[in-house]
Structures are given as C-alpha cells and as structure tokens.
C-alpha cells in the first residue's frame, strides 16, 4: 500500500532553481573573529608560558649539568664552586621526599577527620563558619608559618625530640647523633609542613564529603547503622578518589614549599638516616639558602635542581587532577 508505493517511486528530483539567495552579512561578524582570536590567543599564551618554563630551565640546567663531574641525580654533595664542580641532588631528593612523607602521614588522617567533623559531626550552625575559618587558614602566607615554626615550634619540640631519642632511639630513625641539639631537623620540617597542608586537604575533602549521596546515608540509617557505620559504608567509599586527589594536592604543595623550610631547617648539608638530626636539605630550601652567594655557575646548578622539582610537582599535580577529573563534580576553584 503506502510502503510499496513509496518504495517503487523514483527518488525526488533535484530542484531546478538554486533556492533562495544567500543573505549578505550572515557570515561571521568580524568582531566575533577578533574576539575569538584574542581569547584563543590567551589560551595559547598559557601553553607558551608552560613550554617556555620547561625550555629555559632545561637550557640553563644543561649548561650546569654538562660540567658536573659526578652523577647529578645521585651525588650527595653540593659543591659547584669546586674544581671540578661536583653537585648532586641525592640529599635534596631524600630530604624533600622524607619531609613530605612525614607531612602526609600526619596531615591526611587529621584532615579527613576534620572534614568528617565539619560534614557529619559538628552542629549544623557551626559547620559553615568552621569551613570558612579553614578557608581563611589556607590563605596564610608561608613565610608566616616559617616564622612561627622557627621561633615557636622549634623550641617547643626540643622536649619531644629528646623524649623520642630517649625512648625510641633504638630505631635508627629516631636516634639523635647529638642529643640536645636544637630541633631544626627534617622531622620538625615534616610537622610544620603537615600544619601547612592541612587546610588544603581539609577543604577539598570537605567538598567531597558534602556531596556524598544522602540517599545512601539515609538508607544505611534506616537499616539501623550507627553514625560511624554510615560513614564507613557510604561516605568514605564514595569519597575515596577525592581523598586521594586532595592528598596529592597537599603533597604537591609540600614538595614545593620554600620559605617555611628555609626558616626552620638548619643549613648543614649532610645525609643521615637520623631524622631528628639538624641539617639536610630540600630542593626549594637549597635554592633559597644558596642563591645569594652563588656565582653564575652556581646559579645554573641551582636552576638544574629547580628543574627536577618542576618535573616532580608536574607529575604529582597531573596525577591528582587526572584522578579528580574522572569525577567531574568536584570543582577545583578553591584548591
């Protein structure tokens, strides 16, 4: 019937007339092209800046590394003025990694605790002001943390470090070579970094916990779960990737922290497994401490260590954003 008729009918003829004439001025407005070009250009500028950072740092670093007489990545000394120059990032890598790991071990559980407190345990009227206060604390400049750390925390921790040496000195880690020396060690730096990265991790984790699906929580409550069981079964698994990426953001900040470490850490440059001994160094602190006395070659050597730091933080931040990117609902505006 209908179908057989249309299937045997010929395909429609192409129209003979060319159709309505195209309206002039319907093409893209010139203002649009200019504006689009400008905004695209800004985006490209950012990419160019990133590329320039990599390029200039690599060039300067190569000038220094090419004349290095020892392996740059593993040597344990920093003597670019020597003849032949010998400098390596072994101590710096160790100090940076250890202080950041200590900071993470302390900060991540406490931050998750505070985020849970704000989102589930605190009285509702207290929760918003508390979140606000933590936001403000994330804005405190790092030099102020450094000042407080050097002039308040270090004398305060002298007691703790001698206690640790007394009772836990059998683990090499907590043994002090000279008991009674001031607490300007990687351990103190780790604690100070933990205080610094706490607000960042708390902020992102709190955003994550506030978005956990209420239906699951109410379902668990309806089944008779206690508050902790509700959190354990519905909030924490939902927020796991958020917690991981928040921690990595905090790690990225801890790795690159300069001034707080430079004020607290004593400038001796030696490698030791005794975490309570003063001395050692991190990438950023080394640059800050040695920059003023360095000649041109010394500066290039410091730039080389800065390049390594750049690559490390790039990897850590890229991984964090990748994990967060898989869950589109977390906004990164405040992180």
């Amino acid at each position, binding site marked *: 019937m209908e179908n057989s008729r249309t299937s045997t009918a010929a395909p429609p003829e192409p129209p003979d007339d060319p159709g309505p004439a195209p309206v002039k001025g319907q093409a893209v*407005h010139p203002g*649009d092209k200019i504006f*689009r070009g400008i905004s695209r250009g800004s*985006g490209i500028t950012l990419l160019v800046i990133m590329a320039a*950072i990599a390029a200039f740092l690599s060039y300067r670093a190569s000038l220094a590394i090419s004349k290095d007489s020892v392996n740059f990545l593993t040597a344990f000394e920093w003597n670019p003025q020597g003849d032949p120059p010998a400098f390596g990032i072994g101590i710096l890598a160790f100090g940076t990694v250890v202080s950041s790991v200590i900071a993470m071990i302390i900060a991540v559980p406490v931050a998750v605790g505070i985020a849970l407190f704000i989102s589930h345990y605190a009285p509702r009227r207290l929760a918003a002001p508390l979140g606000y206060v933590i936001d403000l604390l994330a804005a405190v*400049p790092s030099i102020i943390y450094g000042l407080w750390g050097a002039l308040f925390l270090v004398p305060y921790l002298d007691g703790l470090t001698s206690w640790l040496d007394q009772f836990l000195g059998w683990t090499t880690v907590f043994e002090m070579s000279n008991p009674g020396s001031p607490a300007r060690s990687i351990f103190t730096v780790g604690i100070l970094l933990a205080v610094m990265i706490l607000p960042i991790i708390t902020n992102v984790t709190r955003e994550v916990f506030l978005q956990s699906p209420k239906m699951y929580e109410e379902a668990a409550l309806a089944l008779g779960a206690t508050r902790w069981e509700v959190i354990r079964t519905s909030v924490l698994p939902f927020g796991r990737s958020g917690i991981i990426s928040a921690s990595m953001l905090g790690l990225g900040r801890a790795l690159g922290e300069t001034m707080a470490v430079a004020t607290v850490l004593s400038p001796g440059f030696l490698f030791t497994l005794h975490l309570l001994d003063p001395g050692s160094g991190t990438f950023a602190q080394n640059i800050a401490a040695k920059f003023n006395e360095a000649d041109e070659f010394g500066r290039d050597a410091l730039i080389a260590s*800065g390049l390594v730091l750049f690559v490390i933080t790039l990897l850590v*931040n890229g991984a964090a954003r990748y994990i967060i990117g898989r869950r589109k609902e977390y906004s*990164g*505006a405040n992180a």
Partner: protein
Amino acid sequence: MSDNALMDKPRITDPPPPTVSLARRRMPRWSPALIALVSAGLGIGVGNVAGWQSQTQWGLIAALLFVVITYAVTSLVEDTRQAKDRLATSVVWVCFAVAVVPLVSLAWTTVNRGAKLVDGYFLSHSMGGMTNLEEGGGVYHALLGTLEQVGLATVIAAPIGLLTAIYLVEYGRGRLAKAVTFFVDVMTGIPSIVAGLFVLAFWNLGLGFGPSGFAGSMALAILMMPVVVRSTEEMLKLVPNELREASLALGVPKWRTILKVVLPTSIGGITTGVMLAIARIAGETAPVMLLVFGNPLINPNPFSGAQESLPLYVWNQYKLGNAAAIDRAWAGALTLIAFVMILNLLARGIARWKAPKAAGR
C-alpha cells in the same frame, strides 16, 4: 458476656505475661563528660607521678585515656558496634582539637608579638638611615613594593586569565581547549620558586636585565594566572544559558553577548576570584627574593632597581637574628597577615553580596 462486649471491663484471669523491654541498655547522656573528667584526672595524676613537666604530655595522656576508657565502658554497657561508633566520634573530635591548636597558636603568636611595633610610624617609614641593630624603623618601603609588584602582576595576569577563561567556557571545544584546561590545572601547582627561577633564566640571565620589581611581577603573574582562570571559569559557568541564548536570539553578535551580558552578570564572582588570587601572591617570598632582591630604602620605580616586599622584609629581618630585627619581623608578619586577611574577607563579602542565586549548599 454481656450484650455490649466493648463496654465490659477486662477480667483478669491469668497473671500478665512478663514484659520484655524493646529498648537496649544505653549509656547515660552525661557519660562522655564523666569519662573526660576521669581521664583528665588520671592524666594529671600519672603525669605528676612520673615527674613529667610538660602539660601537653598530660593532655595527650588524658586524651588517650579518654578514648580507651570510652571504648571499654561502651563495649561493656552497650555493644561493640556502639563502642566503635563512640570511638570514631571521639577520634574525630580529637582530630579537630589537634588541628585547631597549632593554628590558634600561630594566630595568637603573630598578633601578640607583632602588635608591639605596629603603629603609624612603623607603617610610614622605611629602614633607610638605620643600622640593622637599632630598634625602630619601618615597613613603608616593603608595603610600597608589595603594592606595586602585586598591582603590576594583576595588570598582566587578570586580562590574560579572564580571556582564557572566556575561551574555555564560550569557545573551546576540542583538543586545544582540553590541553589548555589540563595545563591550567597543572600550573596551579607550580612551586613559586620554580616560577621565580624561570623569570630569572629568561629575564635576568637570558635578556640581561638586573633585579627589578617588574621581574618579580612577572613571576607573580605566572602564579596568579591559573588561579584567575579557574575561578573565572567557575563563575562564567554559573551564568544561565538562557541569558546567552536570549541575547543571541535578539541578533547580538557573540562577542557583544559575552562582553555585555555574560561578564556583567558574573562580575562579582570574577572580582572575588581576582582578589583571592591577589591575596595569595601577596604572601609569596621566594620569587621576590630571587628577582627583586630586597632594598632597605624606598624605591618607587618598579622597573629599575631592587625593591623590597612585605614577605621579603619579614625574611630579611628574621635572618638578621638580633632582638630588634626579630621584633620587626613579627610586626611585618602581622602587617602581612592583616593585609591578606582583609583582602580575603572583602573578596568573600563581595562574593556573597553579588552571587547569582544558584541552587546548592
């Protein structure tokens, strides 16, 4: 049985069955307070007996005892599930207390030690004509330097950041937009000293200029750009699409739509984002140390010669180490923190005042 069974009184024939209460045993409401008191007392007692002086150690012992006693008593009176719940509650409260203590200490120390020196003289004089051991002196040169460097950085970074955010929200579809988004995210994590090293390698060592406030501004602009892009992007996304579509339907070209419709709607949030970014870079020391060098005298020209900035002032005074310098360092720190906090509060106030009323928390 009578005619109306409903009106009969029930006759008691058998003794009533024993009632089983459906409610489980619960700890009384005042039990956490009681356990806290007991553990505090035990903590003080143990501390005194062992001869430890530090009150923090007593506090730590008391906290530990609180947690242990709560768990033990609750699992005896109620059951293990409730005990674990109370344990979680006390751990979370303890976390909160642990975090609050250093942050309150930081704020208190800064205000306490810094308020000694901050007054009109301090804010309006520089360190010119003084040796470093003397008392007195001021922070004016540092304040001026910070304002100039931050101002220049904003002039560089805010337009680029704004335009990039417009590109990402309004125009970008495709690989360039994805690359820009990814790298903006990565740029938020660049350590400030790396940005300083880059400008050093490019401007000073590459092009041969000396230290200047402008070089510091460039590094600060690099740090500021990704923050501005991110927050502007969020604000632009909040503008409802109906506004854009209505404007386009009336024949307004896209660029005028953005400039005249979208931007004014989100201008409050954009201002907030820029102010928060300013507050963040005002406290950066490392790139300024490398590029601006520091200068005890007032240098009002950011394009030539070394300048000082507030965080650099704090660092330099700290490194001098004598009592007068440390006092000045604390006073400078108080000025810096006041500056940053005022900016932050202003920015958040503007955000709340001008927020498009979006649904949400």
